[in-house]
């Protein structure tokens, strides 16, 4: 079967899920299947079909599983967000459309994505600038002690880290393509440890040092972990030197320990992580209330879950609405999924993410030039790490920090940025799988 037909068939699970999900939420709410609510599902599926046709014409050789996996994840997201708050679902649908527009623009504008290399210093400068924005007075928005967003008055809160992650991966892919040979060849052994030559490694260090400092200023541990992990992943893929990774992990561990004991916001998060069920921390502002209730919600889900629409998110009858699980549509959406669809549903989501990452890596392996390989591997790694950071936070593997669950969480910046990420992966994949012209 041709790749594009496989992609079309791959959309069936997503459409089934959307149908079942919306039906479940409706039945639970005991309202009839109204036209308005049905349109969400219909529009969503229509958009998927249109996107499929667009890919069919522009990127005929691209990986056939990436987009269906995204559609599956996004259908989870649309149903879950609709179930949490139907107003947000409408906005989410709008962001979905906007994301697809940017997806199309990216594919048309960067059909030859290798020209991105020419702008690598511009891209990295803009990315770092984006990261700084939330700390600027007047427009910075502090959420739960972290500077995560930029308030665009009257419109929305823009989260620059979502875009910065792509910019930094593009830069690293390009820079490491140039220097990876030198980094390995020029490495010297000092005290039994292989160290790369400072001259070539310097710019990487400097840029990432700056990025780390900014993140420390922003108190955004989750993004910090995600970015740093992506850097180490790409460095490892580029050089094959485990010693670089080990040094990097040790340095990060040391830094995390230092920050954990010196920045109150980070100390609070670490305490909540270690003792979520301590009544004192539970009742403390910025304590473990959110994490503990997320875990209670998961416990309520069990193996099969309570069914779509059954999770208790707000305290019933409370006025104004008191959230039992704060930020259900963003940070905690994995807990709601687990509550309603159980261990099996949550496992299915994780497997969908893992398959997406696997297809991304596959594109990286098939790519014929180092830049493409590093770009696809870096984008896949940063995507995987984002999932790990937020799901790990909600399941208490690591401290809980606010990053979005890609394609599922509510949030314009996240949806749009991840569609750009998808576009880049498809571009790499299309070029890699295109038959050689005779």
């Amino acid at each position: 079967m041709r790749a594009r037909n496989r992609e079309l068939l791959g959309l069936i699970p997503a459409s089934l899920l959307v149908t079942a999900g919306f039906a479940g939420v409706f039945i639970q709410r005991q309202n009839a299947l109204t036209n308005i609510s049905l349109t969400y599902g219909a529009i969503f599926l229509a958009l998927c079909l249109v996107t499929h046709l667009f890919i069919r014409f522009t990127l005929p050789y691209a990986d056939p599983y990436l987009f269906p996996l995204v559609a599956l994840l996004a259908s989870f997201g649309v149903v879950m967000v609709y179930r949490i708050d139907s107003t947000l679902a409408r906005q989410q649908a709008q962001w979905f459309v906007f994301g697809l527009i940017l997806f199309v623009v990216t594919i048309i504008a960067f059909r030859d994505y290798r020209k991105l290399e020419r702008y690598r210093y511009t891209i990295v400068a803009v990315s770092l600038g984006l990261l700084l924005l939330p700390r600027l007075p007047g427009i910075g928005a502090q959420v739960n002690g972290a500077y995560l967003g930029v308030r665009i008055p009257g419109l929305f809160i823009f989260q620059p880290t979502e875009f910065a992650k792509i910019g930094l991966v593009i830069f690293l892919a390009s820079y490491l393509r140039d220097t990876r040979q030198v980094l390995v060849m020029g490495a010297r052994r000092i005290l039994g440890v292989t160290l790369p030559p400072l001259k070539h490694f310097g710019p990487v260090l400097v840029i990432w040092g700056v990025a780390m400092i900014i993140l420390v200023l922003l108190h955004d541990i989750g993004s910090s972990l995600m970015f740093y992990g992506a850097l180490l992943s790409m460095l490892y893929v580029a050089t094959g030197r485990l010693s670089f990774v080990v040094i990097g992990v040790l340095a990060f561990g040391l830094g995390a320990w230092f920050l954990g004991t010196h920045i109150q916001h980070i100390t609070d998060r670490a305490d909540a992580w270690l003792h979520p069920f301590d009544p004192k921390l539970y009742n403390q502002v910025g304590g473990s209330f959110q994490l503990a209730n997320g875990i209670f919600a998961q416990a309520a889900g069990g193996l099969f879950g309570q069914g779509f629409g059954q999770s208790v998110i707000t305290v019933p009858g409370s006025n104004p609405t008191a959230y039992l699980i704060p930020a259900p549509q963003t940070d905690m959406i994995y807990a709601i999924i687990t509550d309603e669809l159980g261990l099996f549903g949550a496992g299915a989501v994780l497997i969908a993410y893992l398959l997406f990452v696997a297809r991304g890596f596959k594109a990286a392996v098939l790519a014929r030039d180092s830049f493409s390989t590093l770009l696809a591997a870096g984008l896949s790694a940063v995507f995987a790490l984002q999932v790990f950071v937020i799901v790990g936070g909600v399941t208490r593997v690591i401290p809980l920090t606010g990053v979005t669950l890609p394609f599922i969480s509510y949030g314009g910046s996240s949806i749009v940025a991840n569609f750009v990420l998808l576009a880049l992966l498809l571009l790499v994949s299309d070029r890699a799988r295109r038959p050689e012209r005779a």
Partner: protein
Amino acid sequence: MNAQIARLFGVIVILFTLLLVWTSRWTVIDATQLDNNPLNRLTLIHQLTIKRGRILADNSAVLAKSIPAGGGTWKRAYPTGSLFAQAIGYSNIAEGSAAGMERFRGPELRGLQTGLSSVFGQLSPRPVGDDVLSSLDPKAQQVAQTLLAGRAGSVVAMDPQTGAIKVMYADPSYDDNHPNPNAPGQFNRSTQGSYPPGSTFKVVTAAAAIDSGKYTPNSIVDGKSPVTISGVPLNNDNNQSFGPIDLTTALTYSVNTVWAQVAEALGRKTMTRYMKRFGFYSKPPLDYPADEINTSRPYSSTGTAYPPGSPNEDIGRIAIGQGGLLVTPLQMAMVAAAVANGGRLMTPHLASRVVDPSGRTVETIAPTLWHRVMKASAASEVAQMMKKVVDEGTGTPAQLGSGITFAGKTGTASVGLAGLNLTQPWFIGFAPIQNPKVAVAVTIERSQGGFGGTVAAPIAKAIVQTLLSEGQ
């Protein structure tokens, strides 16, 4: 670079496996423990969304119902308020407090919620609990409230043949729509009040005397006054000496010295055996929260409970309702019921049936025998003695007239400091003697010199009349 990518993917697979393991930990391995964590409010909130069943009186009047509280939750409303507050109790799920039948019958009122679910959630409408039908009689309950007239005291009436409680009212009561743990009425005097029973306890002594075969109603005992009991002189009322009299006469005129001598002659062991059979020394098996029921038994002057048959018990004085004996009105109604029902003490119960929302009976609370207290012949003889009390003795104010026979016993215990003239008037009894339908116990707290015959007997009479007129 492909080998590195493969290894990197391996690391990511490990990381995702960690996520799955941790998700399993919360959803399966630790789930029960998390569900029971005191910080977890989900179970509580789930209960708020259940429409608890109603509690109905024996005439189907609604005593408790659920009303919407917004957000798909329910709260309880009690249309009859203070009239049934102690029997019904209350349920305040949001604050985690409950009392009375609401508390005891919680599982039935919540209904059988199997938690059957699917991807589509529960396809059935929101969970609805079962209705609990009680045997409580609103009309007689109202009579009890009216006649107690705000005086602290209690009225308990039951069907001696089935154990069904018909009346359970105590003053002060409270409005169970607005429960307050500190309100005096939330202490249910009918099941928790501990009072000296006074002479009503002589019914127990008489039953022990006759059923044991040591005495008959015609046995003669010297009713002189005083008599030394446990080394201390005991007087009759007004220090009246009756001379040698039979036991029927001794009960009719409530002669203390006769019954104290009888008990000493029967011995502590025999007396304790019969007390246990009547239900003393243990909690009555009422379908009501056990910690809202007190045990009726003798206590030392310092307030510690005597073990059954303790040599420190002054059995002669216990036999006439003194000697540190403290009882609940429910227990004394059970004493009357045991005599009424031929010595067969039925398990008392407030609920009679559980009915699901579709009207199907889920559970019927059938009459069950709790204790076989005495032979039917002995019970019949004690009943005749008690009939004499109402016909011509201290209980004449309870006479029902119109040919209906009433067997009863008065009691007037002295309470408080001597000289204050504070009493605890009692009346226990049952009617009609042939085929008894009602057993009743009435008591008033700290009456100013009132007697069982004058203060409690008229209330008992009105209750019996009301219940008998309804039964016809």
